[in-house]
């Protein structure tokens, strides 16, 4: 969704500043992507702390576009994750149970951290599965 209407400007275009909050973040994303490609080093960018003008965020998300992966994590409210049209550049939007925004981040990684199975959960995974297998053999599942 590109919002080109809300950016401060005048009709003849003379006074549009050669600066844009969304464009500045794009440069950060490029640096993060370079680190991922060259060193397999994931990075995150918090979009809350950016001095965006009206429309900058929408323009940034518009530039990034949408890729082929989207997911929703339900933990303390919904977290919506989608890969942008640039592979490895993910948008992670955290909301609380009442859909109020908690955080919005760009995560440059192979897979965003919140989508991975958590190590502490994996430690319990076998026991959990065995418990279910036991319940199944006893005819409880």
């Amino acid at each position, binding site marked *: 969704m590109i919002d080109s209407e809300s*950016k401060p400007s005048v009709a003849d275009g003379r*006074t549009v500043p050669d600066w844009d909050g969304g464009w500045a973040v794009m440069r950060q994303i490029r640096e993060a992507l370079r680190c991922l490609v060259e060193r397999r080093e994931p990075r995150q960018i*918090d979009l809350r702390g950016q*001095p*965006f003008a009206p429309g900058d965020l929408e323009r940034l998300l518009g530039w990034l576009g949408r890729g082929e992966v989207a997911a929703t994590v339900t933990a303390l409210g919904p977290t919506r994750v989608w890969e942008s049209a640039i592979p490895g550049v993910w948008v992670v939007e*955290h909301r609380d149970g009442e859909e109020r925004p908690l*955080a919005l981040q760009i995560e440059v990684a192979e897979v965003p951290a919140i989508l991975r199975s*958590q190590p502490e959960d994996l430690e319990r995974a076998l026991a959990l599965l065995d418990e279910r297998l036991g319940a199944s053999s006893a005819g409880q599942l």
Partner: protein
Amino acid sequence: MAEAKTLGEHLREQGVSRRGFLKFCTATASLMALPPTMVPAIAAALEQARRPSVIWLSFQECTGCTEALTRSYSPTIEDLIFDFISLDYHHTLQAASGDAAEHAREEAMRANWGQYLVIVDGSLPGPDANPGYSTIAGISNWTMLEETVEGAAAVIAIGSCAAFGGLPHARPNPTGAVAVMDLVHDKPVINVPGCPPLPMVMTGVLAQYLTFGQIPELDAYLRPRAFFGQSIHDRCYRRPFYDKGLFAATFDDEGARAGWCLYRLGCKGPSTYNACATMRWNGGTSWPVEAGAPCLGCSESRFWDAGDFYKALSVPTDFDAGAVLAAGAAGAVIGGAAVALSKRRARNEATHRAPVTVDELEQKQ
């Protein structure tokens, strides 16, 4: 009361999953204006953190700070009260009143001596003032502050009234109002000014204390540098217009409609340190400058006495908008000169300003 359980244990008992905890820590890092790389450290610290007891004292205030906090989006006040802290006394929010409320405060102090946090909103009549200007349960504000602070780990002065005296302190200061830091010298004091402060800054300071168990790095005015380290002007999205010398001259001229810099309309952004430009208000929706209103400088000391909110102290009264437009790239030079003039004029006005009389008020109406 403060709990023996850690926050991690508390969250797990509530059925919060590891992903939920990770999300909680991510939101907390964002809240504290920390980089996302700090999330693992925050997770480790919060896992072991215990809920501190908090005693909130409201003195000469308008309840605007509490109003702002209870409308905070992240975390909600419910999260704040039940998950982050144990709010044991807040006479506006608590159900108890009178002696029962005061007993709750005394009990919280006794049970958590040396470890509880004291939050103060509002200024208070100083030691030399008539204590009758502000009392709670018949106790003068100063006496209550003195006895409550004695067993505190730290004091957080919320809002410009508690931090700097605020509106009660404005000339002619009829109640002899003073700031918390004028009276508390033997405990760490953290100032979180603003009229009101950004809700996310208030909760961010609390979260930072909870996470790391220590007060954050402070500036010369005892404000956390994480939130007050940069001026509104330096983080303002209208800054490029300032650099080009493009200013709105009235609230409805071409410049105002085009989103130009509001400096000439009285914006105090260059001399105001706060996080409004990046954190924004109402859950990150907008902030005054984005809505077309100049920054009033509400997080700075004595901003009520700094002159007309909407008059640029730095701009000559015969300033010509057309000339500015023609100047184009020379605007930065004009802006720099305006800053110098602002400082001279502010000094001059501070020297010569006389209190407004009742007769003058009548005439203005």
